[in-house]
């Protein structure tokens, strides 16, 4: 059985008097360890799909099973638990808490996990995750003291701190320059390869979608195409090619996700 399985789901919104059919019968299977890029023009339903897959929303019709569990019928609180333990979110706007240190931001999902970890245990886990994304010496910085790439790495550390099986990224490179975008893609690819985390990348940029091993194109609320990406871009190689040419912020520690 696939990790994620959606069967003929639909989603209909009421926007004023107009009914918007955001998803019109989508069926998908995603296996554990895949790096899936979901792409398509705005309004094609890819964000709606992500909200449903991310358990932020429920489909109007159809079935969604995550790790053999039917999600369609769960309560609001049960969905919160699934989000907390199984899914890590990365957003376009980073969504870090303002005036809150990187460390406290990363610790946030641990607070809602209901584990009996002591506060020093939680602190250690958050420190470990920040170190893994190369921000050892930025732990006590506030979001407005960090660059866009650094903020997105804090957000990634936050998404990973509860060891989720799925990483859901909604336009993660939308607010970043191309070089930083490649660095973020490198982190995703490393996570996917070394830790076998299933990555779901939502993007409208087709060149970013090419970092995925499988590309699903959406159009008008349906899947227009769904195929393996035979020419997957490898972020690590691209970084290696350009090193030495750029004056990147070299204060950042190397990323070491194998830790």
């Amino acid at each position, binding site marked *: 059985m696939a990790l994620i399985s959606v069967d003929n789901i639909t989603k209909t919104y009421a926007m004023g008097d107009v009914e918007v059919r955001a998803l019109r019968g989508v069926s998908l299977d995603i296996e554990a360890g895949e790096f899936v890029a979901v792409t398509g023009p705005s309004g094609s339903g890819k964000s709606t799909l992500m909200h449903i897959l*991310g358990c*932020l929303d429920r489909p109007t019709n159809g079935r969604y099973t995550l790790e053999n569990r039917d999600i369609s019928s769960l309560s609001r609180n049960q969905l919160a638990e699934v*989000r907390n*333990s199984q899914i890590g*979110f990365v957003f376009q706007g980073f*969504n870090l*808490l*303002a005036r809150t240190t990187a460390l406290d931001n990363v610790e946030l999902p641990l*607070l*809602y996990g209901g584990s009996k970890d002591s506060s020093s245990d939680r602190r250690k886990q958050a420190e470990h995750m920040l170190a893994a994304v190369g921000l050892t010496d930025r732990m006590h910085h506030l979001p407005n003291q960090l660059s866009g790439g650094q903020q997105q790495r804090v957000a990634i550390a936050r998404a990973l701190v509860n060891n989720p099986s799925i990483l859901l990224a909604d336009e993660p490179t939308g607010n970043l320059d191309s070089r930083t975008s490649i660095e973020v893609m490198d982190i995703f690819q490393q996570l996917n390869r070394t830790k076998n985390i299933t990555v779901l990348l939502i993007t409208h940029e087709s060149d970013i979608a090419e970092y995925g091993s499988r590309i699903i194109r959406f159009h008008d609320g349906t899947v227009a195409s769904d195929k393996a990406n035979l020419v997957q871009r490898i972020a690590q190689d691209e970084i290696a090619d350009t090193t030495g040419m750029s004056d990147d912020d070299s204060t950042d520690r190397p990323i070491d996700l194998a830790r």
Partner: protein
Amino acid sequence: MSIFMVLRVALKALARNKMRTSLTMLGMIIGVAAVITMVALGRGAQSEIETQVQSAGTNMITVRAGNYRSRGVSMGMGQSPTLNSRDVDAIRERVPDALYLAAGVRTRDQIIAANQNWNTTIQGTDIEYPQIRSWATELGTFFTTTQVQSAAKVAVLGSVVRDNLYGEGIDPVGARIRIRNQSFQVIGVMSSKGAGQFGEDQDDVVFIPYSTVNKKLRGRDGTNISQIDISAASADSIEVVADQIADTLREEHALGPGEDNDFMVRTQEDLTRIRSQTTQTMTGLLASIAGVSLIVGGIGIMNIMLVSVTERTREIGLRMAVGAKSQDVLLQFLVEAVVLSLVGGLVGVGLGFGLSESLTRFLSWPTSIPADAIVVAVGFAAATGIFFGFYPARKAARLDPIDSLRFE
């Protein structure tokens, strides 16, 4: 999520906006401080009354002439000639627990000593008056039975009168003063007693035998008196003694069963009760006005929390996305409101202490802060926080995670 963790999350959220947090608390601080100060003033006034009662003597009973109707015309208290010195003898004889008795007549006149003069109360009284009021002479002596019987022209000065006629600390015993062109010998000076129950200066008085007032100053046959001061044997028996006195006087005055008393018996307790009630009413009134500011403070908290929920919509959405349940969000905002009101309340108690202390120090107003007022004020502050914090917190908890994340 444990309540301890909720508290930590709430405190961190409040610490992120210190200016707004302290301004929001200000309403609560002022409200609680006002309530505490008002109650402190009220209690201070009350305990001062108690002290005054102690100093006046708790066993005191006063009988005043009056309630006398002459063909339908009511006469004022103490003015009608319904008490006389025979009544004193009758009480002394028939009420054994009336320990000390003193007939009294009051008048007011100019006192002249050499080139100084002073207008004051002239209190005609009897030899047991110092025991009844537990009030000793500072210099010289009070008058004797012989002096009362012979209507001797002797005077004992209150300390204020002495100060004004002779100067502070001067011993005028043996000197002569003039009242209505008659010469009196000063035989003593009373110790200072301070302000009385109604704010009057008890030391602004001259004591002379009641018989002298009647015979020499008023020029009438001296048996009518305006009041009798009595000291009961103990504070416990005061009501019984008061009743016995009333019975004796009714008998003396030959009043039939249906007739009203032509005198009035007041115990010290009656007077205290009336004054305490007045003070309590006043305290209650002031404290409730101050209480209104507590409610206003609570509404201020609700206002800020509502703004805060709107402003932090994305934060709420994010918290929900990473696993916060509705009740986690509800509790966080509720705890924030309660922390605001509770900390504001505690600071307010501190400020109330400071204000009360300053009033006592700089204006000499007596204050006393009862422990229960602190508990009630802080408890009310916390309750206000829960009450006014609940609506914004529920609003936050009911937000939709997707809409909140997209909120601009």
